[in-house]
């Protein structure tokens, strides 16, 4: 059984370019390339989304912080798949025109991940000693200035490992784009599986390994950063 399994990895070798970049450069980008594009684009967008939601959620004004927390907790209580379906539905209705599947997924991932990023931002801000804010305000800065110039720069540095972890989750979550037909790695794998029929074990094991290599690299990076931060804090 094992021998048969190994010999069938030919199917991977035959389709390796398709796995990596889809029909690019002749056609649109797909495979691993598109997976990374989806992850990076949504990561950048949801960094800002998370920053805004996070800042709003630590606001002292209840009428700002309370509805923000409601939005955050609502998103966190719903499966990502549901969020993507909602986007698929609502975006065309809101914009009055069709949105490409890729953009729909990026917006869905951004919306979902922003809620989780906001909790990282919130924890980062709350982790800075209160004295910092008091000192900043007593030197004449306004509350928002103290936040932007004093608290956030220190907090953001502590948040970096958590952001990297969130990026890993995002890479894994891009596989859900398969459901609305975006040809990222998982979708490409199902296509090749449907075409070749005989090698599902090899194909899905292979893409699991590909995801693993990418995600594990970032997980290790996050661990290294965490250690370095601890070392910095210790001195």
């Amino acid at each position: 059984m094992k021998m048969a399994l190994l010999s069938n990895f030919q199917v991977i070798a035959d389709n390796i370019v398709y796995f990596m970049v889809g029909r690019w450069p002749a056609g649109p980008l797909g495979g691993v390339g598109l997976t990374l594009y989806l992850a990076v684009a949504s990561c950048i967008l949801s960094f800002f989304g998370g920053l805004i939601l996070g800042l709003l959620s630590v606001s002292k004004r209840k009428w700002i912080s309370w509805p923000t927390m409601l939005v955050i907790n609502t998103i966190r209580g719903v499966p990502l798949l549901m969020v993507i379906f909602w986007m698929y539905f609502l975006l065309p209705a809101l914009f009055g025109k069709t949105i490409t599947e890729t953009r729909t997924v990026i917006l869905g991932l951004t919306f979902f991940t922003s809620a989780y990023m906001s909790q990282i931002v919130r924890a980062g801000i709350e982790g800075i000693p209160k004295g910092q804010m008091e000192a900043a305000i007593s030197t004449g800065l306004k509350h928002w200035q103290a936040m932007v110039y004093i608290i956030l720069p220190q907090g953001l540095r502590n948040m970096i490992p958590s952001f990297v972890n969130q990026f890993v989750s995002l890479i894994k979550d891009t596989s859900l784009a398969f459901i609305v037909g975006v040809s990222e790695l998982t979708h490409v794998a199902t296509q090749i599986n449907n075409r070749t029929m005989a090698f599902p074990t090899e194909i899905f094991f292979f893409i699991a390994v590909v995801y693993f290599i990418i995600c594990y690299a970032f997980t290790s990076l996050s661990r290294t950063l965490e250690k370095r931060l601890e070392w910095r804090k210790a001195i």
Partner: protein
Amino acid sequence: MLSYTFDWSVITSGQYHDWLVSGLKVTLQLSLAGIILSFLLGLIVAVMRMSHLKLFRWSACVFLEFTRNTPLLVQIFFWYFGSYKLLPTAVNEWLNNTGFEFAAGLIALTIYTSAFIAEDIRSGVLSIPKEQMEAAQSSGFSYLRSMQYIILPQAVRITIPPLVNQFLNLAKNSSLAMTIGVMELTYQARQVESYTFKGFEAFTAATLVYLAISVVITFLVDQYNDRVLKIHKGA
């Protein structure tokens, strides 16, 4: 969008209502069976991860890293499409006759969740002072028995909140099982949408159900923290 007429009766009674309710039942079955199985598997992995034997420690590490750094969707596909090559023929036949979709979904969800549970249990055990283990062993317990009678009962007590949260994650993640045809809540919501074009109503219903599950679980965890562990929010 403006010409859309809401028709909530679609989901409050009749055939489509029944579909959604049966979907909720499957979601709950999947989550309940999943949490029990993944707790058992997670417990084994956690004990192996902390074992003195290098072989156990290593295999647990490989399992944890691989499961946590690959997308759940890919794992579901691997078990659904690819497991027939790994399992004996008799098992395959039995599975095919008893609804393989549910079993494959359950296997994938169990394995994925068990990795997170193992880490929760491990951090629970690490929070128990070392002296407990030393005392247990010096009074004649073997490593495994000290774990069983002394360390784990204490660790499980503080691991319950993260475990319950894993149940919530499991309930949300089980939505991915729709991709292999498990007729759970999200599957049924989509089904109602394609039969009636009342997607807005169907997805609202499903979203509210997921939110209700998450509200109930968050409430229970808060109560447990407050009453049993005496951790008070905001204190």
